């Protein structure tokens, strides 16, 4: 897993558990933090019309997505008392059982971190130009639809 460029939320392929653990570890120096909230989106092997999803292939309109993510970030920091916030989203193929979205918010007290994390996840799913192509075991595919 490689981060494509600085301040980019997109990573190639799945987000590893080791990366998540490392992100948590990095916050031990920020001692004003009293609470972390983490959301991990995992690719589910849905069965659609008898066919099983084996992976999701993610694509994006990167420039627009990053600009919009910047706006979401500004809105969230204005609304909640956060110490920091990190977002990582996979691009390319992520197999069932692997992590494709990692949202990590930290604050002095739990409520801000929890509420901000939830709002960021909802806004990412609704507002970011990212598309998931559900690939079935027989290599056929369909375009994923998010439940709003």
């Amino acid at each position, binding site marked *: 897993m490689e981060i494509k460029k600085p301040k980019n939320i997109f990573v190639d392929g799945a987000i590893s558990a080791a990366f998540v653990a490392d992100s948590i570890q990095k916050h031990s120096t920020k001692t004003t933090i009293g609470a972390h909230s983490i959301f991990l989106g995992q690719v589910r092997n849905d069965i659609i019309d008898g066919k099983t999803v084996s992976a999701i292939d993610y*694509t994006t309109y990167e420039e*627009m997505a990053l600009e919009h993510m910047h706006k979401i970030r500004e809105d969230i920091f204005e609304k909640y008392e956060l110490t920091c916030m990190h977002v990582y*989203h996979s691009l390319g193929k992520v197999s069932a059982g692997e992590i494709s*979205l990692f949202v990590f918010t930290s604050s002095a007290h739990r409520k801000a971190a929890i509420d901000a994390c939830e709002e960021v996840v909802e806004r990412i*799913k609704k507002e970011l130009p990212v598309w998931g192509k559900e690939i079935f075991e027989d290599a056929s595919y369909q375009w994923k639809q998010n439940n709003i």
Partner: protein
Amino acid sequence: MFWQQYWCWLPTNYYLQMHSKMNKITVLTFGAITDITGQKNFEMDGIDSTEKLVETLEEKYPLLKTVQYAIAVDKEVIQQHTNLDSDATIAILPPFSGG
């Protein structure tokens, strides 16, 4: 292009430059929309509004009439049809499904 660089003092070429510039837009497609158009990005001439763009695209790719999409002009999703400047980048966006 050769004539733009070296022949721009000709009034006719000023006209040609302006004319070609005013009409050229770039169209980007994504996801299910790319499946329909068969190409990820392409240029179109003579399109001065999103209304005209939709009309032209739906005529060329009738399947577009059967799917949902939003339109972004220079990375901003529009809520109603708008005029298009020269060099505008228009993205045809199927429903988002990230996360």
